[in-house]
C-alpha cells in the first residue's frame, strides 16, 4: 500500500473513532432530570450507574415460538443496554409499567419501559403476564410509542374561535373547558333527558363511561356498532342469546372463518396466535372470502364465495351432517328448542315436506326429519353453483367439520354479515352449525362472548335511565344491535331531533361512516348539534368540526378496565398512565393524570368525574352523589379510590392473589396489569342452578327465568327466552318477520347478489371494508411505523376485468356508486374474484389546512366543494417531507395516501339488524378520463337521502308490528338498559 493511501486510511480510522456514531449519538447522551418532551422533541434518557439486570425469562409459546422477557420481580428496577447506542455499551435504567394496548379491540398487554431519570418512555413491548396476548403483540402495539411522541399530536385543550370547520383554535385551560361544557350540559339536562349524546367509536373499556351516562340520567349512549358487528350480533343473539362468538381456537380441530380473521380480524393478535397453535397441532382452516387474504393463503380450504352466498355454504354443511348422520344428536336433543320448532313451524313455514314432520305429538326424530326436509335443497352441487366455488372444496370442508365435531371453532364478526343485506343470517346459520356439531362452548368449540369476558360490578351504580331517545333507537329498528349510529345525520336532517351537547370519543364518523358528506353537513349545523366536544388522542376529520378538541390519552396515558373474549378463559386488564405510575413509584405526587402525561393530555375517567361534578356542583340534580369520594364526599373520587374498590370487591380471586404477594389488589394490578379470573371455561349452560321450577323453566324469586330443566336437572341454559338454542325464532315471528326466510336460518337475497349488479352497463361489486393488519380504522394515522408500511389503498382488480376495461396496474379507475363517484389507482391481481373490486379500509385520510388537522405523513391536503346538495373533494397534494421535532418526518418517501371512498357509499341499513351493509353496487366502473384526478370524490346528498329512504321503507316498525306495545323485545340487549316502562311505545 502506498504511503499516502496508507496514511489516508489510518487517518480516517482514527477520526472515525473520535466521531459519534451518527444514528447512535442521540442514544449515547444521558439526560439528568425529568422531562416532558412529547410533541416538542424526541425523548432522551438518563444514565444507569448499575450494570444490566441479567437473565431474561425465556418462554416457549405453544406454537413453538420463543420470547424473552424481564422477570416481573425486576420490573420495578430494570437495567438493560441501549440497543440504539450500539456498538457502544450504554446502560439505561427503567421502571416497567404494564398497560393495555388501545390500538384495536383486542386489549393486548403492553409493558412500557419508563426511564427512571426523565420519565420518558423508551418503548412498549409485550406483557408476558397478560393471559390474552401472552406477551405478544402485533405491529400496532409497539407503535404506541410513535403515537405518544407524534410531533403533530394535540397536547392541549383547544376551543374553536372561528366558524365551525374554519380551523381557528385557541388553547384553553382544562378549567375553562370543564366549566363551559358542564354549564351547557346542566342547562340541557334540566330541559330534557335526550339532549346529551356520547358517541363512542372504540370503547376500549368496560363500564366506566356507561356508568357516567347512567348517572347523568340521559338516554345518551351511541356507538359505532352498526357499522361494525351489529349484523353478526343480531344473528348470534337471536339464536343463542350471546352477541359475539368466542372460539376456543387453540383446541379446535376445524376452524371455519367467514372473514380474514387470522390475518386482521377481531381480536387479531390473541386469536391469530391460537389459530396458528391449532394449525401446528393439525387443525384444518376453512376460509370464506372472495379475496385471497393472507388468512385465505394460510387456509387448508379457501372458498372464494360470491358475496351473499355464505349462508347457503354453511347450510350445505348442515345438510351434509344431517344426511350422513354425523350430527350431535345428544346436544341437539338436550339444547335445541325443538319442541317450539315443531309446535310453531306451521305459523311461519309453508313447505309441506317440512310441515309433514311438525305439529302435535311429534318428537325429536321428527324434528331432525323436518330439518332434513327444510335444508334438502342445499346440496353441494346447488350451493357450489350459487357461491361460484368448486363443489369438491365444499365436500372437503364439510368433512373437516364433520370430523371436528365438538371441536369446531368458527368466527364471523364483520365480513359477510356486515356486508350484505340479511347478513345477520350468516351467524344464525353458524349457530345452527354449532348446534348440529354440538360445538357450543366446548373444548375446541365456540363459546358466547359473555362466557369468556369478565364484567365487573361497578362502584355505586346509578339507577337505570327512565327514558328512550328515538334518535338513538328509532321505531323502525326494534331489532337493531344497537343504536342507529350511522343514520344520525339522516335522522336530524328529517327533523327527528337535535342534540345539545355531542361528545365524540375516539370516533371519526365523517371519515369512517358511509355517506360522510351527510356528517359534514350535520357537524357544521349549529342548530342540529349545539356543542360538539371531540375527545380524541389525535386529530381526525370530524374533530375539525368540533367546538372543543380535548386531547385524551393513548394506551399508556389513561386508566381503563378491560376484558375481552380471547380464548376459553376470563381475564381482566388494567390500562394505566405509565408516566404517572412511574412517578408515583418514585414518590412524586400527581393529582391529575394530565400533570404527568405529555403536554396536558388527559384521560376520560378523571375528566368524566370532574365534568359531572361541575355539572351538578351542589348536588341538586342528584348527579354529583355518584362521583363523590367515599373517603371525602366534598371532592370527586380519585382513580386510586375507584379502582381499589373495583379490584377489592368486584374481581373474584384477585384479593387472594394479591395477598399472596403481600400486595393490595390495586397494587397487584398496577404491578402486573392483568389478572386471570378463570381458566378453561367450558359449557357454562350446563351449570346447575337453584330456583323454582315453572314448567320447563327455572325462575328466581322475582319470576325471572334463570334456567331450564333438561332431563330432569335445572341448568343455566342460554339467554334466549326458551333458554335453549332457537332454530325457529319466535321473537322475529311475533314482531312481524313471520316468513320462513326470516324465522329460520336461511339465505336472504343480498343487495349485491349477482343479479343485482348491472354488469352489462359496466357495473361491478365493490368490497370496501377489508382491514390491513398494520392499521386500525382512523386511529393509526399518527403512527409513523405503521403508515410507512401501509399508506395507500389501490383497487384490487382481476386480470380478466382489467383486460376488459383496458387498464393496467397504476392506471386510474373511476368508480361510480349509487350516490357519487371517486377515482383510485388499479392493482391488477388474481387475488380477487372476477366481477369484484376490493379496496381496503383505513386509508384516504385528508386535512383542510397545510400544517394542522391530521398527520401530514398520512393525509392529503384537500379542498372541499359544495353547491346545492352536490359535494366534491379534490386533492391538492399528498404526503411530503417536513421539518418537525422528529427527524423521521424528513424521511417521508411516499406521496399517495389513499382515496376516501366511504364518502361515496350510500347508507344501507339492514331492516332487521340495523347494520350498515357495507358492500356497494359500483354502478359503473371505467378507466378515468384525463380530467379525473387521483383521489377526486363527487357526491350528491340528495341521492343519499333517496337511498336512505328506500332502505328505510323495508323496515317493519315497532309501532305497527310490536306484539305487546313495546319498542323492542325486552330480552334483547342495549348498552345501557332503561327501566321497563321506557320500553313502552308512546300512545
Amino acid at each position, binding site marked *: 500500500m502506498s504511503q499516502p493511501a496508507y496514511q489516508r486510511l489510518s487517518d480516517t480510522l482514527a477520526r*472515525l*473513532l473520535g466521531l459519534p456514531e451518527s444514528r447512535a449519538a442521540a442514544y449515547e447522551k444521558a439526560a439528568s432530570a425529568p422531562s416532558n418532551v412529547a410533541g416538542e422533541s424526541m425523548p432522551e434518557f438518563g444514565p444507569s450507574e448499575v450494570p444490566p439486570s441479567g437473565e431474561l425469562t425465556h418462554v416457549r409459546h405453544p406454537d413453538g415460538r420463543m420470547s424473552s422477557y424481564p422477570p416481573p420481580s425486576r420490573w420495578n428496577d430494570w437495567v438493560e443496554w441501549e440497543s440504539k447506542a450500539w*456498538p457502544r455499551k450504554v446502560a439505561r435504567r427503567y421502571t416497567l409499567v404494564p398497560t393495555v394496548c388501545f390500538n384495536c379491540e383486542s386489549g393486548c398487554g403492553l409493558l412500557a419501559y419508563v426511564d427512571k431519570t426523565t420519565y420518558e418512555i423508551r418503548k412498549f413491548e409485550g406483557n408476558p403476564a397478560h393471559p390474552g396476548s401472552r406477551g405478544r403483540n402485533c405491529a400496532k402495539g409497539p407503535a404506541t410509542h410513535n403515537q405518544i411522541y407524534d410531533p403533530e399530536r394535540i397536547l392541549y385543550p383547544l376551543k374553536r374561535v372561528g366558524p365551525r370547520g374554519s380551523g381557528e383554535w385557541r388553547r384553553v385551560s382544562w378549567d375553562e373547558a370543564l366549566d363551559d361544557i358542564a354549564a351547557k350540559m346542566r342547562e340541557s339536562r334540566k330541559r330534557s333527558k335526550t339532549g346529551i349524546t356520547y358517541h363512542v367509536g372504540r370503547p376500549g373499556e368496560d363500564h366506566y363511561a356507561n356508568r357516567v351516562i347512567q348517572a347523568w340520567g340521559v338516554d345518551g349512549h351511541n356507538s359505532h356498532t352498526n357499522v361494525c358487528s351489529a349484523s353478526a350480533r343480531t344473528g348470534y343473539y337471536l339464536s343463542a342469546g350471546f352477541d359475539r362468538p368466542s372460539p376456543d381456537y387453540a383446541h379446535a380441530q376445524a376452524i371455519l372463518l367467514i372473514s380474514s380473521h387470522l390475518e386482521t380480524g377481531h381480536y387479531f393478535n390473541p386469536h391469530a396466535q391460537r389459530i396458528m397453535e391449532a394449525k401446528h397441532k393439525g387443525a384444518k382452516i376453512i376460509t370464506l372470502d372472495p379475496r385471497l387474504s393472507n388468512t385465505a393463503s394460510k387456509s387448508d380450504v379457501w372458498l372464494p364465495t360470491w358475496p351473499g352466498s355464505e349462508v347457503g355454504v354453511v347450510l350445505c354443511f348442515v345438510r351434509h351432517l344431517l344426511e350422513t348422520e354425523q350430527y350431535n344428536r345428544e346436544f341437539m336433543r338436550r339444547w335445541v328448542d325443538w319442541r317450539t320448532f315443531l309446535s310453531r313451524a306451521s305459523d311461519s313455514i309453508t313447505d309441506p315436506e317440512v310441515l309433514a314432520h311438525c305439529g302435535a305429538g311429534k318428537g325429536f326424530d321428527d324434528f331432525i326429519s323436518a330439518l332434513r326436509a327444510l335444508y334438502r335443497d342445499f346440496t353441494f352441487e346447488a350451493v357450489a353453483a350459487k357461491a361460484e366455488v368448486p363443489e369438491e372444496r365444499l365436500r372437503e370442508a364439510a368433512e373437516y367439520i364433520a370430523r371436528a365435531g365438538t371441536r369446531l371453532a368458527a368466527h364471523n364478526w364483520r365480513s359477510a354479515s356486515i356486508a350484505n343485506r340479511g347478513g345477520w343470517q350468516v351467524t344464525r346459520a353458524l349457530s345452527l352449525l354449532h348446534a348440529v356439531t354440538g360445538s357450543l362452548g366446548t373444548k375446541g368449540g365456540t363459546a358466547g362472548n359473555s362466557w369468556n369476558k369478565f364484567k365487573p360490578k361497578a362502584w355505586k351504580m346509578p339507577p337505570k335511565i327512565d327514558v328512550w331517545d328515538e334518535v338513538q333507537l328509532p321505531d323502525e329498528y326494534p331489532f337493531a344491535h344497537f343504536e342507529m349510529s350511522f343514520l344520525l345525520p339522516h335522522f336530524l336532517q328529517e327533523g327527528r331531533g337535535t342534540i345539545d351537547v355531542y361528545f365524540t370519543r375516539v370516533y371519526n364518523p365523517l371519515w369512517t361512516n358511509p355517506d360522510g358528506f351527510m356528517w359534514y353537513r350535520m357537524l357544521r349545523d349549529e342548530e342540529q348539534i349545539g356543542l360538539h366536544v371531540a375527545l380524541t388522542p389525535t386529530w381526525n376529520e370530524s374533530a375539525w368540526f368540533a367546538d372543543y378538541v380535548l386531547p385524551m390519552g393513548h394506551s399508556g396515558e389513561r386508566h381503563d378496565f378491560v376484558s375481552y373474549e380471547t380464548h376459553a378463559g376470563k381475564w381482566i386488564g388494567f390500562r394505566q398512565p405509565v408516566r404517572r405510575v412511574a412517578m408515583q413509584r418514585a414518590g412524586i405526587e400527581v393529582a391529575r393524570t394530565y400533570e404527568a402525561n405529555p403536554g396536558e393530555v388527559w384521560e376520560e375517567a378523571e375528566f368524566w368525574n370532574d365534568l359531572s361534578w361541575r355539572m351538578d356542583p351542589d348536588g341538586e340534580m342528584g348527579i354529583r352523589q355518584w362521583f363523590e369520594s367515599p373517603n371525602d364526599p366534598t371532592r370527586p373520587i380519585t382513580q386510586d379510590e375507584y379502582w381499589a374498590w373495583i379490584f377489592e370487591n368486584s374481581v373474584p380471586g384477585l384479593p387472594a392473589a394479591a395477598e399472596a404477594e403481600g400486595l393490595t389488589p390495586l397494587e397487584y394490578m398496577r404491578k402486573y396489569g392483568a389478572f386471570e379470573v378463570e381458566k378453561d371455561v367450558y359449557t357454562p349452560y350446563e351449570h346447575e342452578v337453584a330456583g323454582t321450577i315453572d314448567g320447563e323453566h327455572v325462575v328466581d324469586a322475582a319470576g325471572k327465568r334463570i334456567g331450564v330443566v333438561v332431563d330432569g336437572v335445572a341448568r343455566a341454559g342460554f339467554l334466549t327466552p326458551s333458554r335453549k338454542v332457537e332454530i325457529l325464532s319466535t321473537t322475529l315471528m311475533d314482531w312481524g318477520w313471520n316468513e320462513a326466510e326470516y324465522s329460520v336460518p336461511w339465505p336472504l337475497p343480498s343487495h349485491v347478489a349477482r343479479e343485482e349488479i348491472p354488469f352489462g352497463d359496466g357495473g361491478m361489486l365493490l368490497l370496501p371494508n377489508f382491514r390491513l393488519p398494520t392499521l386500525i380504522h382512523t386511529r393509526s394515522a399518527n403512527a409513523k411505523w405503521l403508515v410507512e408500511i401501509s399508506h395507500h389503498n389501490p383497487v384490487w382488480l382481476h386480470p380478466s376485468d382489467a383486460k376488459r376495461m383496458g387498464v393496467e396496474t397504476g392506471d386510474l379507475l373511476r368508480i361510480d356508486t349509487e350516490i357519487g363517484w371517486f377515482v383510485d389507482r388499479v392493482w391488477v391481481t388474481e387475488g380477487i374474484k372476477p366481477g369484484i373490486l376490493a379496496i381496503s379500509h383505513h386509508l384516504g385520510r385528508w386535512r383542510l389546512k397545510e400544517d394542522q388537522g391530521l398527520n401530514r405523513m398520512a393525509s392529503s391536503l384537500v379542498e372541499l366543494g359544495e353547491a346545492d346538495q352536490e359535494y366534491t373533494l379534490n386533492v391538492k397534494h399528498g404526503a411530503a417531507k417536513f421539518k418537525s421535532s422528529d427527524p423521521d418526518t424528513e424521511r417521508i418517501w411516499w406521496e399517495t395516501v389513499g382515496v376516501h371512498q366511504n364518502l361515496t357509499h350510500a347508507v344501507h341499513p339492514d331492516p332487521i339488524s340495523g347494520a350498515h351493509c357495507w358492500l356497494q353496487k359500483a354502478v359503473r366502473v371505467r378507466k378515468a378520463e384525463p380530467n379525473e384526478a387521483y383521489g377526486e370524490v363527487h357526491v350528491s346528498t340528495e341521492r343519499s337521502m333517496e337511498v336512505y329512504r328506500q332502505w328505510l321503507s323495508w323496515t317493519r316498525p315497532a309501532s305497527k308490528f310490536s306484539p305487546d306495545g313495546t319498542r323492542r323485545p325486552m330480552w334483547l340487549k342495549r348498552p345501557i338498559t332503561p327501566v321497563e316502562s321506557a320500553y313502552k311505545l308512546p300512545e
Partner: protein
Amino acid sequence: MSSDDERRAWSRLYALLGQALLDGWTPDVLETAQALPALAEALPDLEPEQLSARHFKAFGTGVPPHVSAILSEEGVLGGAESQAAREWLERCGYRHRRTDTEPDHLGILLRTLGFLIVAELDATEDGHHARAAEIRELQRQGLHDFVLPSWPPIAMAFGGGHLSEWTAVTQLLSGLIARHWGWLGGGEVAPLPQSVDMDLADERVGLKQIAAWLCLPARSGVRLTPMDLADLAEEVGVPRGFGTRSQVLENILHAAADRQDSAGALESLHAWLTRWIHGLRELEALGLPVGGWLTRASRAAEVITQMQAALRVGETEG
C-alpha cells in the same frame, strides 16, 4: 490506537462505506463522510439528488456490486453465489429481508463484517472466547468466500477517477479489506470459477463474440463500465451507439473497422487492459489476493495482442 480501538474503527468504516454502497449518500452517511477528510475532499459539492444519480451511475449502470454479477459465468444476479451469501448472513444472525436487492450485495456483506468485528470484541470482553473464535471464523468466511474474490473488479472500476467520491470509497475499502484479511491471517482466496476461454481460431468467433467475452468479468477478468466504453469510443473517434455493454463494444469495434482504424481501437483497448493489469498489481501489493483476476486479465490482453497480430498479417497480405 490500540488493536481493539483500531478494529472498532474498522467496524465503523465498514458500516459507513457498506451503507454508502448500499443506499448511497443518505443524510446520516453524508454527515459522517463530511467529517472525514479522505471522503470530504472527494465528495463533489452537489445536491443530494445529484449525488444519488452518481451513485446510480456507479453501481446501477457501472458495476453491479453483487458477488453473483461479478463471479457468475453469465454475469447475472442471483443464483448460487447469492444463495451462499444468504446462508452466510443467516449464520451471522441476519435474515435478509430487503426486497430491493440480493443478499450478496457487497454493501450488505461489508456492513455485516463491521457487525462481526464488534461482536467478536464484545464476546472477548465478556469472556466468551469460544464464541469470539466462531465470530472470527465467520469474518474469515465472509472475506474468503465473497468479498475478496469479487472485490478487485469493483476496486478497479473506479480507478479512472470518473466519480471521485467512489474512487475514494473504493480506495479506503481496498486498504481496509487488506488490513482485515491480514489480521485474520491472510492467504489465498477461493479460486475464480471455471470459465470459457476465447479461441480466435474458431471460425464462429466474430467481433460480437469477442465483445461479449470481454464484457463478462468472470471470463475476461475485466469489467468494462459504460464510462470506460465511452472513453474508448472517444479515444478512437467513433460513435458507440446504444445497447448493452457488449453491444456498445461491438459497435465500437465495427465502427473502427468501417473507418479502417481497427488497429487504433485495439491499441486503445490493449492500453486500457494494461492499465487494468497494473492496477491489479497495486492491489496485490496492498495485500489483496488478485491472482485469478490477474491471470484472466492477462489472457484478455493476450487475445487483443493476437487480434493485433492477425490484423497486421491481414494488412500485409492485403
